[in-house]
């Protein structure tokens, strides 16, 4: 092996270029990076071939000379290409000139036109020297190369003029070029053996690296690892030991006239200080490059884990803000989420932040975030023409927020949220690592927030009534149990607010107006209740308010206030004034379980309605505990008969008159009607219908065959089978009943039950042939009761059939003639003995 002076410099350069080239091959290939890789490869070839030539490695000096010289001649071209990419120059003609010139030089040199391979001569001391025979053509090559170098400097000059020297990275590029030029010029100093050109090449490459980093084109940790830095320090220490200790000691002894010991001591001190400084700088560098990145990775992982497990938007946003605050020193962070075409501030890290704000989704900032970068630095955005279209209010908002950076939470092409960072504490610019950290976090957050929002939306939709925006019945049933448990040691009030005659209001003003009223009532209730309770839409026109900790007096006060506000909705335009009846029950004073609380409040509101509407009824006395549905039905029927309401009393009188009339004409029909009414009422209770519905069913049962008054007695009491014509007349009793009831305007609420009691579940009934759920539930109850009684009662032409037979028939016809669910309930009532022909005979009656 030949000896080459300062071989370590060349080897260091080679290692440096090779390492950088390999690392950059793995990074994202932008035009700048690609041209940098080309430049590095050219440096590698030049330095490597030069070393191999000096070492006279196979295949020989000539080969390595040509590789080295061609790489050297190509160097200005790659420099030019890199710089033109870096400064984004589009000077096509200069580029063509540089490429063409380089090609000419390379082709000529390949044939040895400019410089021949050196002659190798061995000196007496065994060293080899390389003697070049330079002829005049080399000046042509030098001239052309200088022309390219001038083109490079002109390009830089133009860039500085156009973009200013503050363009990111430009300064380092210029310093690097100057260093390279100086290094190569030092090479021509006579008797110089140190490879300044190679050293300046290293400096140049490192400065270009820094320039690329300043342009945010790669991550520094891609290039530098802990081990590389430690190795570099070790190399530095070794080199320093080798080359500085002895010269320093000699210098100290010569210049300061120190003796050997003192000089050694000073050398040790100086060297220790140098080592300490190097160690300190290295630690700083490690801290900046690695500790921070590791911390970022830990934070990202923590946040990612949290986000994956949480379906709470608020918690995710809080964690996001907390994570960012830990890493990036910034004053305030706001998170905005989309809502009705705007991005509304839903979370802020500063509790004393200004009033709530929102950003329009048509804002130019959003357009920028959507079409360009996922983040927006406001100061840089001012340079975008899009900034011109920013609204004043938005500009003022950003100013008041002291907004520095906006990051989009992007899910594909959709922006699912915005992250606003204000009050940047230090420096003006975010580093590449910080921006990467922010965009990574926002990507994770966007998916997490999207999922959480979807979940919350579904959760909300499952619990919120879509019309009135208060909780729905489903949630009420769920929540009342929870609240009851929670309030065991205190009290829980349940207030039912039932809008009086809303059906009539709808008929007079239209359903849309009725819906509006419901919405406004819901709003009144929500406002009146505030944070003290929850409002539910219990059924069509009934709202429930659950009030933990409320007693009767407070609940009544609240109800009174609500009634006033509902009454105030009347603007005099509707002939039907709005009013509400309220029913109150408070546990534990008047109910011992949630079911009872609901039932008692139900009864209270029923009372209120029957007491002339627009009243408040409080369930105060515990009523008898019902053992079964029959007992409850009896209670409701008795309650209906003893009602204090004038309307109710009037209706009862009418029903009594009509039933008396039918009794006079056809006793069977009278008895049948009474039985049907009772069976249907018990069924209704067991089916979970409310007291008012039970009462309606009972009344409809009494009148369901009232139309038979107009049918001839011969047909009604005929012993044989009815003819087709007679059957037709019999079928007409339904319409007859309706004709009679509809003239009694105060009882028109009975019509749906009466008209549908001969409809069948499969749609084959009469008079309209409607099917399944289209048949009112009241009518379906009557249909079952009617059939059962028809089978079990004595008729003129036969004795009553056994209950078991009737049950068998009901089972047979469930799903065809009868509602299957109600049929099952009815059969179970029969089985439990709650419905039987015998016990119905003695029950309380509406009749005198």
């Amino acid at each position, binding site marked *: 092996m030949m000896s080459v002076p300062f071989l370590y410099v060349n080897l260091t350069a080679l290692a440096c270029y090779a390492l950088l080239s390999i690392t950059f091959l793995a990074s994202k290939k932008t035009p700048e990076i690609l041209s940098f890789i080309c430049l590095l490869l050219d440096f590698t070839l030049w330095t490597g071939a030069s070393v191999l030539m000096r070492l006279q490695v196979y295949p020989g000096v000539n080969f390595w000379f040509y590789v080295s010289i061609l790489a050297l001649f190509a160097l200005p071209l790659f420099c030019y290409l890199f710089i033109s990419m870096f400064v984004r120059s589009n000077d096509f003609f200069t580029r063509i000139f540089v490429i063409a010139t380089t090609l000419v030089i390379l082709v000529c040199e390949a044939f040895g036109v400019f410089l021949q391979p050196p002659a190798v001569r061995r000196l007496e001391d065994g060293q080899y020297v390389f003697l070049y025979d330079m002829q005049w053509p080399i000046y042509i090559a030098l001239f052309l190369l200088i022309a390219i170098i001038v083109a490079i400097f002109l390009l830089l000059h133009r860039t500085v*003029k*156009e*973009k*200013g020297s*503050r*363009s*990111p990275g430009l300064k380092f590029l210029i310093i690097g070029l100057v260093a390279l030029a100086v290094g190569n010029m030092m090479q021509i100093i006579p008797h110089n053996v140190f490879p300044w050109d190679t050293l300046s090449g290293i400096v140049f490459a490192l400065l270009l690296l820094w320039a690329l980093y300043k342009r945010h084109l790669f991550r520094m940790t891609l290039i530098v690892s802990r081990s590389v830095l430690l190795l570099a320090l070790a190399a530095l220490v070794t080199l320093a030991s080798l080359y500085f200790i002895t010269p320093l000691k000699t210098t100290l002894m010569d210049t300061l006239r120190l003796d050997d010991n003192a000089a050694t001591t000073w050398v040790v001190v100086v060297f220790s200080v140098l080592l300490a400084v190097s160690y300190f700088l290295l630690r700083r560098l490690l801290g900046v490059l690695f500790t921070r990145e590791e911390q970022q990775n830990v934070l990202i992982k923590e946040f990612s884990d949290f986000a994956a497990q949480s379906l709470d938007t608020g918690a995710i946003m809080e964690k996001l803000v907390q994570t960012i605050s830990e890493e990036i020193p910034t004053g305030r962070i706001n998170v905005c989420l989309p809502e009705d075409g705007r991005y509304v501030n839903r979370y802020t890290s500063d509790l004393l932040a200004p009033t709530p704000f929102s950003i329009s989704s*048509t804002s*130019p900032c959003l*357009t920028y975030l959507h079409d360009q970068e996922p983040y927006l630095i406001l*100061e*840089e955005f*001012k*340079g*975008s*023409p*899009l*900034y*011109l*279209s920013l*609204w*004043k*209010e938005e*500009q003022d908002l950003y100013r008041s927020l002291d907004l520095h950076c906006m990051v989009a939470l992007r899910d594909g092409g959709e922006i699912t949220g915005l992250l606003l960072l204000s009050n940047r504490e230090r420096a*003006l610019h975010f580093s590449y690592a910080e921006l990467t950290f922010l965009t990574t976090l926002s990507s994770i957050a966007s998916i997490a927030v999207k999922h959480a929002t979807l979940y919350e939306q579904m959760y909300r939709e499952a619990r919120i009534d879509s019309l009135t925006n208060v909780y729905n019945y489903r949630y009420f049933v769920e929540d009342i149990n929870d609240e009851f448990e929670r309030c065991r040691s205190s009290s829980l009030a349940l207030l039912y607010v039932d809008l009086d005659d809303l059906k009539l209001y709808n008929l007079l003003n239209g359903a849309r107006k009725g819906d509006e009223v419901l919405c406004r009532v819901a709003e009144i209730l929500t406002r009146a209740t505030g944070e003290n309770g929850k409002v539910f839409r219990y059924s069509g026109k009934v709202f429930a308010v659950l009030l933990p900790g409320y007693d009767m007096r407070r609940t009544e006060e609240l109800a009174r206030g609500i009634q006033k506000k509902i009454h105030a909705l009347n603007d005099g335009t509707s002939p039907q004034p709005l009013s509400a009846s309220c029913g109150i029950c408070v546990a534990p004073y008047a109910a011992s379980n949630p079911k009872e609380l609901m039932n008692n409040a139900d009864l209270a509101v029923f009372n209120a309605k029957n007491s002339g509407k627009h009243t408040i009824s409080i369930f105060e006395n515990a009523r008898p505990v019902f053992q079964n549905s029959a007992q409850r039905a009896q209670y409701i029927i008795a309650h209906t008969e003893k009602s204090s309401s004038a309307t109710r009393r009037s209706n009862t009188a009418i029903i009594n008159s009509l039933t008396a009339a039918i009794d006079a004409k056809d006793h069977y029909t009278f008895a049948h009607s009474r039985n049907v009414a009772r069976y249907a009422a018990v069924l209704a209770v067991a089916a979970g219908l409310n007291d008012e519905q039970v009462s309606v069913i009972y009344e409809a049962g009494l009148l369901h065959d009232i139309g038979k008054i107009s049918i001839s007695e011969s047909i009604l009491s005929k012993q044989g089978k009815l003819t087709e014509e007679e059957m037709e007349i019999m079928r007409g009793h339904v319409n007859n009943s309706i004709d009679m009831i509809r003239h009694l305007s105060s009882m028109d609420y009975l019509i749906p039950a009466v008209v549908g009691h001969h409809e069948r579940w499969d749609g084959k009934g009469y008079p309209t042939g409607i099917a399944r759920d289209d048949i009112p539930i009241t009518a379906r109850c009557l249909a079952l009761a009617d059939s059962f009684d028809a089978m079990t009662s004595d008729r003129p032409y036969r004795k009553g059939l056994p209950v078991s037979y009737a049950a068998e028939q009901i089972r047979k016809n469930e799903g065809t003639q009868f509602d299957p669910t109600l049929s099952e309930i009815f059969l179970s009532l029969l089985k439990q003995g709650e419905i039987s022909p015998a016990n119905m005979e003695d029950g309380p009656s509406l009749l005198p």
Partner: protein
Amino acid sequence: MRFQEELKCKSREQIWNEYCGYLDLSLPDYMYVQHHLLAEQLKLWSESRLGQTMLHGQKPKNSEELRHMLPLTSYRDYAPFLLPKPSDGLPGEPIIWIQTTWEGGLRPIKVAPYTRSMLDTYRHHLVTLSILGCSRKKGDIRVKKGDRILYGGAPLPYATGLMPSLLSETIAYDWLPDPNETKDESFSQRIRDGFSLGMQGGIDYFFGVGSVAHYITENFIRTLSGGHSSGGSKTKVSPRLALRYLRAKSISKRDKRPILPKDLFHLKAFFYTGPDSRCYTRDLSEAWGTVPLEIAAGTESTCIACETWEHNGMVFFPDACFYEFIPESELERCRFDPSYTPRTCLMDGVETGRNYELVISVLHGGAFMRYRIGDVYRCVSAGGNSLPRFIFNDRVPSVIDIASFTRITEAGVKEVIELSGADMGDWLMKKEYNSQNRPFLHMYAEVSPRALRKSAVQAEILADHLAAYFRYFDSDYSDLKKMLGMEPLQITLLKPGLIAAYQAKTGVTLPKINPGVLDINEMLQFEKAYTFRDEEVVAP
């Protein structure tokens, strides 16, 4: 961040993009900015009392709805609301009220409110002007803190007075002198001060309304050549300028011409504005060695457009106003049928080579919507994806504006004739240009037969007589002669009854103000064959 700090901290590319980046906008992007800002303005305007009154409670959401709901407006529509300078009821809080002349003596002034947002935008555009004025190519920024501006604009409350105040908010320029600080001085004193300060430290920018800039330039030349003194003898001169002066003196001797400002000052930028400015371009370029950059600005509109270094027409700023254009054909139709509502097109609908009257809706809380400012622009390039460019053509035909000093309408002329008591018959008035391309008022007047018999009637006598009343009627008119350096009114006497006879013969109704040049020529031809008879006289 103030502009002078931006110059230190930001790269030139960043600064260029911030202030001049709009020049690279594609037409769709330009329209996006226009529509987006109009949406903001519509929100503000339709919620204000002014907007509610004019829109009758309607609330347009976009340009289409606005054009459908609101007819074109003129200052008459706003006068009852704006002239009392209310502090509320406007789309934005007025920070300052800017005024200008309206219709001479008939309605002396009109006022326009400026919101803070308008002022901010105005300031941004003024910086853009500074940059563009100095640039010789894209990205070329030569503006510096401390640059010296010779300012030929009027002080506040005129719109030009805003320029020094607004620019001072963002960069420290040296004003030669600041018109707002020397508002008590006369115009000629300010010119003398400007010259004196210019001689002390040089001049970097020169701004003025075309005719005023020309007047100042003439004044300078006279002073430099030792003619009328503008206080030059007492002026302190910097050594650098003294050297330049000596060199200029020798050049002027060699070339046998007076010393020109360009011999002494090397302007970075030269701006002018106003109707008829182009008449002075050649002289001004020759005198200052720089081609002036045309800008479009107005009291109601703020600064709305400027040329670039290419001098190939002005590009309208996308964020100053929302622009609509009335094509010339619609304008003509409207002129002869005042009840006709002209149709408008937007920036993306203009065509090269056509003239358009500009209609503006001032953005950022401005008061004026669909407002006809009365300026006609010629589109010099449009199409493709690039932004249309315009040059100022003239005022609308029904108004004669001479050198931005006076606005003469038919009603104004009638008033002057009545005030003067001149016994005149029918008349026509047209803005024409003399051989030196200077504008003047040309009146074609019939003198009544009675006057012919009773008094000495000569064109010059009548011109002097009417000019006196024009000066009485409109104070700005009195400055015209000084600025133009010539008599602004010339009269050609016509045979009595000629106009009516010509109209009867051709069936053409000639507008009183600015009739067509062909009609005038034909009528003068017709006059040769026309014999006046007493019974044909049309009484005035």
